[in-house]
C-alpha cells in the first residue's frame, strides 16, 4: 500500500471529516423493493424451466422397503422421477465435520436419502415436471412401503444411547467438549453461596418469509452451471457445487439477487438444493426448487433445543467466583454441512459467563443425534443460550444475596480498563465497555423510577418485572472459526472500486445483501473514502462471476470485514485518481484532494476539475497524458481479521413486562438495548438490525417452538400453528450505543446483526421472573407460554 492510501477518511481541513460515516442515510437499493420490483429467485423466468418437487418421508425413522415411482412418472407434465441412487450418480455425499472440533462425527449424507429416512421430511424421491402444480399432483402417485425403525426424539435418551440412530458411529454423540480451568470443586465447596438451575430451550427456526429458493441452469456445451440462489455465501456454494457435482470451480457461477430474509437459514448446504442442481445437470435444462411453508418447517435448519444446568459460586458480598455448566443439545440425524452442527454447543461453552470477571470455569457439553429435523447455525448461534443461562443464574444469585440485579452486575462485570482481557473460557477480548453500557442503559430506562413504580403497582396487584441481560457477541470471525478446521469458507472479503468515465463510482463487494443494508453501508464508506456524494456510488454484490472472492454474510461480519475492504479500496482509488489529476492539472498530487465529486485544492478547496471530466480524459483521451503514465481507476482490496479469533462486542438489554397472573399472559411494555459495535456506519441501519434481532429473540422467548410428538412428527408446520411475533404484541425498542472502535481495522466497525437476538430471551426471562418474585415462582423453559407461566404459579 503506498503512502497516500494511508490518508484519513477525509483530509484535514475539509468540512466533512468522516464523510457519510455515522449518518443515517436511507439505503439506495431499497427503492426497488418498495415498488415490488426486486428480483427474488422465484421471480426469474427461464425458457424450458423445469420444476422439482420432493417426495418426503412421512416417518421420523424408517427403511424404504419399496419405492415405486412408475405411476408418478406417467402423470401429465412429468419430465423425470428420480430416487436417491439416481441423483447420487451426479452428486457426491458429504460429511458435516470439521478438524478443529475434535472427535466430531456424522454419517455421509446424500442429496436424496437412499434406503433409509432419518427425519420426517427428509427427501427420498424427486419429481420433475413442467409446472410445480403438475409435480405436486404427481406426488400423490408415488407408492412407498416403509418399515418403521426405532425413533429417538428425546435428548437424554439419545445421550443414554439405548437406541443408536447410526450404528456405524457406535453411539448418538456427534460431538462433546469438556473444559476446566481447575479449582472449581474446591471453590464451590468453600463458597458463601452456591445457586443452581436448569434451563430448557425449545427448537425454533428462522421463518424467512421467502422460502429457500434455487434455480440451477446447466449448460451442457460448456459443462458449466449457473445457480441463482437465495443464499448468504455465494463463494462457499460455488465451491460446494463444484466439488460435489464434479464441475470445475471456474465453470460454476452462483448469483444471489434479492434475498427474502436469511438469518443464518440460508448459509447451509441443503440436500434438496443439491439435488436440484444435480437434476439440472442430469436433464441439461434449468430446474427450480422453492420450499413451500410446510417444507420450510420440515427442512430449514432448526436451532437451539438445549438443556443447560448451571451452577455458580459467590461470596456473600456478591462476587462471582466460578461457573459450572452442563449443556446438552440435540441436532437431528446429521451434522449439517459444511459448518457442522457442533458450533452452537461449542459457542455455549465459549460464551457462558462471558461478561464477568470470575477466573474459574468448568463446562461439559454434549451434542447428540435425534430423529428430528437437523439444527445448525441460526442468528446469534449459541448466544441466546449462553446469555439466558448466565443472566438467569446471576439474577438468582443476586436475589439470594438480597442485592439489586443491576448492582450485582456492576460488581462482577469485567472492568472497562482491564483490556486486552482473556476470559476464563480462553476467548480474548480486545476492548469492551460493559460498565459504560450498564450505566447508559440504567439512565436510558430510568431504572430507579421503574423499580419504584414496580413496588407501587405490586401493592395494587399489578405485577411488572424488569429484566437485565448483559452479553458479549462474536463478530468479524477470523479464519479460526471455520478455515482452520478445513472448511473451504473464506474469512476474507474483498471490494473492487472503479471510477467510471462519468465520474460515478462502482463498488463491487463479496459480501451479500440480505436486507440488512450492507450495500447501503458500503456506498457510504465508498463515497466517504473516495470523496464523492452518495448518489455517485453504485454497489454490486452477489455474483461469483463478478465480485472479489469472499465469505459473504454471516456471523455479523459484513460491515466489519467487507466494509474495511471497501474503505481500503476507496482510499487506493482516491490516491490513483489524484495521480491522474496531478498529470492533467500539472500539479503536485499532494496539493489536491477530492471533495464533492471534484478535484479541489486541498487547502483552499478551490475547484480544479470535475471527476466526470477526469474520467473522460482518462478513458477517452489518455493520449493527452504523459507517455509513461497509465491510469489505474479500478482497484481491489481485501481484508481478513487475524489478530483476534473474533472481534467481540458487548451490550446489555433490559425488558419491562407485565404478567397477568390469572391468565399467564406476558405483555411486553418496553425493551432497551445499549450496544457497542465500534464505529457506527449508519445509526439507523444499526438500530434496525438491533430491533429486528430483539424481536426474533422475543419470538424465541415467548412464542416460537417447533413442536414434535414422541414419534418425531412435527405438530405445527404452518404459520397458523407456529407463532411468530406480530406488530400488535411487540413493544417499542429503545436503542443506544457506546462506540469503542476495534483497532484491528481502520474502519473500526464490529458487527451488530445478532446482538438483539443474543440478549433478548435472557432479558425477557429475567423480567418475567422478576414479576413473579412475590409468588416465589420462576420460569426456566422457553418459550414462556401462558401455560408455563401458570404452571410456575401452581395454577395448572
Amino acid at each position, binding site marked *: 500500500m503506498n503512502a497516500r492510501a494511508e490518508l484519513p477518511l477525509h483530509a484535514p481541513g475539509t468540512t466533512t471529516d468522516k464523510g457519510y460515516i455515522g449518518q443515517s442515510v*436511507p*439505503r439506495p437499493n*431499497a*427503492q*426497488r*423493493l*418498495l*415498488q*415490488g*420490483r*426486486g*428480483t*427474488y429467485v*422465484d*421471480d426469474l*423466468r427461464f425458457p424450458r424451466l423445469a420444476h422439482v418437487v420432493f417426495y418426503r418421508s412421512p416417518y421420523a425413522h424408517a427403511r424404504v422397503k419399496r419405492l415405486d415411482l412408475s405411476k408418478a412418472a406417467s402423470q*401429465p407434465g412429468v419430465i423425470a422421477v428420480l430416487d436417491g441412487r439416481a441423483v447420487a450418480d451426479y452428486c457426491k455425499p458429504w460429511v458435516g465435520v470439521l478438524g478443529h472440533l475434535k472427535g466430531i462425527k456424522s454419517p455421509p449424507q446424500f442429496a436424496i436419502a437412499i434406503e433409509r429416512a432419518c427425519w420426517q421430511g427428509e427427501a427420498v424421491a424427486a419429481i420433475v415436471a413442467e409446472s410445480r*402444480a403438475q409435480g405436486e*399432483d404427481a406426488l400423490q402417485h408415488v407408492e412407498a412401503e416403509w418399515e418403521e425403525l426405532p425413533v429417538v426424539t428425546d435428548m437424554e435418551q439419545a445421550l443414554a444411547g439405548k437406541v443408536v440412530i447410526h450404528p456405524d458411529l457406535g453411539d448418538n454423540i456427534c460431538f462433546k467438549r469438556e473444559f476446566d480451568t481447575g479449582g472449581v470443586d474446591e471453590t464451590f465447596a468453600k463458597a458463601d453461596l452456591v445457586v443452581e438451575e436448569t434451563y430448557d430451550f425449545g427448537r425454533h427456526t*428462522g*421463518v*424467512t*418469509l*421467502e*422460502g429457500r429458493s434455487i434455480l440451477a441452469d446447466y449448460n451442457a456445451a460448456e459443462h458449466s452451471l449457473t445457480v441463482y440462489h437465495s443464499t448468504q455465501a455465494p463463494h462457499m456454494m460455488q465451491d460446494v457445487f463444484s466439488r460435489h457435482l464434479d464441475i470445475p470451480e471456474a465453470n460454476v457461477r452462483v448469483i444471489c439477487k*434479492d*434475498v*427474502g*430474509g*436469511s*438469518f443464518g437459514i440460508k448459509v447451509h448446504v441443503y440436500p434438496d438444493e443439491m439435488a436440484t442442481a444435480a437434476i439440472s445437470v442430469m436433464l441439461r435444462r434449468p430446474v427450480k426448487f422453492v420450499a*413451500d*411453508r410446510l417444507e420450510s418447517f420440515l427442512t430449514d435448519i432448526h436451532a437451539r433445543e438445549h438443556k443447560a444446568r448451571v451452577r455458580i459460586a459467590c461470596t456473600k458480598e456478591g462476587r462471582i467466583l466460578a461457573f459450572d455448566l452442563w449443556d446438552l443439545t440435540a441436532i437431528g440425524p446429521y451434522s449439517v454441512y459444511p459448518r457442522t452442527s457442533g458450533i452452537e454447543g461449542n459457542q455455549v461453552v465459549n460464551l457462558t459467563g462471558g461478561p464477568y470477571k470470575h477466573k474459574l470455569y468448568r463446562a461439559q457439553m454434549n451434542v447428540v443425534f435425534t430423529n428430528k429435523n437437523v439444527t445448525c447455525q441460526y442468528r446469534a448461534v449459541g448466544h441466546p443460550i449462553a446469555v439466558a443461562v448466565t443472566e438467569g443464574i446471576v439474577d438468582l444469585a443476586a436475589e439470594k444475596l438480597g442485592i439489586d440485579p443491576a448492582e450485582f452486575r456492576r460488581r462482577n462485570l469485567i472492568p472497562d480498563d482491564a483490556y486486552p482481557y482473556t476470559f476464563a473460557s480462553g476467548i480474548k477480548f480486545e476492548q469492551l465497555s460493559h460498565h459504560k453500557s450498564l450505566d447508559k442503559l440504567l439512565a436510558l430506562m430510568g431504572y430507579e423510577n421503574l423499580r419504584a413504580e414496580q413496588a407501587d403497582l405490586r401493592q395494587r396487584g399489578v405485577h411488572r418485572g424488569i429484566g437485565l441481560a448483559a452479553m458479549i457477541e462474536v463478530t468479524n470471525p477470523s479464519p479460526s472459526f471455520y478455515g482452520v478446521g478445513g472448511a473451504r469458507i473464506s474469512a476474507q472479503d474483498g471490494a473492487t472500486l472503479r471510477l467510471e468515465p462519468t465520474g460515478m463510482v462502482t463498488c463491487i463487494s463479496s459480501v451479500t445483501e*440480505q*436486507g*440488512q*443494508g450492507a450495500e447501503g453501508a458500503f456506498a457510504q464508506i465508498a463515497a466517504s473514502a473516495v470523496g464523492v456524494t452518495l448518489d455517485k456510488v453504485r454497489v454490486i454484490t452477489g455474483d461469483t462471476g463478478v465480485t472479489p472472492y469472499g465469505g459473504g454474510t454471516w456471523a455479523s461480519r459484513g460491515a466489519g470485514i467487507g466494509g474495511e475492504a471497501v474503505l481500503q479500496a476507496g482510499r487506493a482509488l482516491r490516491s490513483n485518481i489524484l495521480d491522474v489529476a496531478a498529470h492533467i492539472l500539472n500539479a503536485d498530487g499532494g496539493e489536491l484532494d477530492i471533495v464533492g465529486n471534484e478535484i479541489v485544492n486541498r487547502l483552499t478547496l478551490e475547484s480544479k476539475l470535475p471527476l466526470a471530466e477526469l474520467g473522460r480524459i482518462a478513458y477517452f483521451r489518455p493520449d493527452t497524458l504523459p507517455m509513461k503514465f497509465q491510469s489505474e481507476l479500478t482497484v481491489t482490496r481485501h481484508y481478513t481479521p487475524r489478530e483476534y479469533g473474533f472481534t467481540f462486542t458487548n451490550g446489555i438489554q433490559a425488558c419491562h413486562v407485565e404478567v397477568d397472573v390469572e391468565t399467564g399472559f406476558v405483555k411486553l411494555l418496553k425493551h432497551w438495548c445499549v450496544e457497542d459495535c465500534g464505529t457506527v456506519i449508519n445509526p*439507523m*441501519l444499526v438500530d*434496525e438490525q438491533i*430491533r*429486528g*434481532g*430483539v*424481536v*426474533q429473540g422475543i419470538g424465541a422467548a415467548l412464542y416460537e417452538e417447533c413442536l414434535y410428538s414422541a414419534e418425531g412428527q412435527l405438530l405445527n408446520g*404452518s*404459520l*397458523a400453528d407456529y407463532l*411468530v*411475533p*406480530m*406488530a*400488535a*404484541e*411487540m413493544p*417499542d*425498542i429503545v436503542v443506544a450505543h457506546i462506540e469503542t472502535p476495534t483497532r484491528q481495522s481502520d474502519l473500526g466497525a464490529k458487527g451488530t446483526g445478532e446482538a*438483539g437476538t443474543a440478549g433478548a430471551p435472557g432479558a425477557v426471562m429475567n423480567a418475567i421472573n422478576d414479576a413473579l418474585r412475590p409468588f416465589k415462582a420462576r420460569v426456566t423453559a422457553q418459550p414462556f407460554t401462558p401455560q408455563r407461566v401458570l404452571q410456575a404459579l401452581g395454577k395448572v
Partner: protein
Amino acid sequence: MDETLVTTLIVNGTTVTRRVPARQHLSDFLRDELGLTGSHTACEHGACGACTVRVDGAIVRGCLMLAVQANGRKVDTIEGLSDSGEIADLQRAFHVRNALQCGFCTPGMLMAAQDLLASRPEATREEVREHLSGNYCRCTGYQAIVDAVEDVLASRRGART
C-alpha cells in the same frame, strides 16, 4: 383436475383475459400469468399477508382467492399503486425510516398500510400496530414500519387541513 375457465379482469387499470385453471389462486395468476412478481407468496394459507392485493378496493389475501373469483373485478397490485403514485408518500416514509429490510413482506405491508391510511385517518399508534398484525415481517421488528405509517397519517392529515 385442470379445468380451465376464461377469466376477464382489470389489473392495474388494464383489462386482461386469460384461460386459467379453476384451482389457480390469484397470487399465482398475477405472478405466473401476468408476470406481476411484486406480490409474494410466503405461506399460501392466509397467515402471513405477503400476497396482499386489492380487489374492488378491499385488501385480500391473493393466496386465498381463486383467480376465477376475480372475474369481472378490479385488481390492484403493488406495481399499479407504485406507477399511479397513490402510495408515493408511504413508500418514501418507508424508505426514510428503513421500514423494510429484505423487502419480501413490503408490498403486502404497503397494501395493508394504505388500507388503514385511507379508511382510518385518525388511527392511533396502537391501532396501526393492530391493523398491521395480519402482515408478518421477520426483519424489522415492526417499529420502523409503525413509525413510517404514523408519519404518513400525520402528513396526510396535515395536507387535508
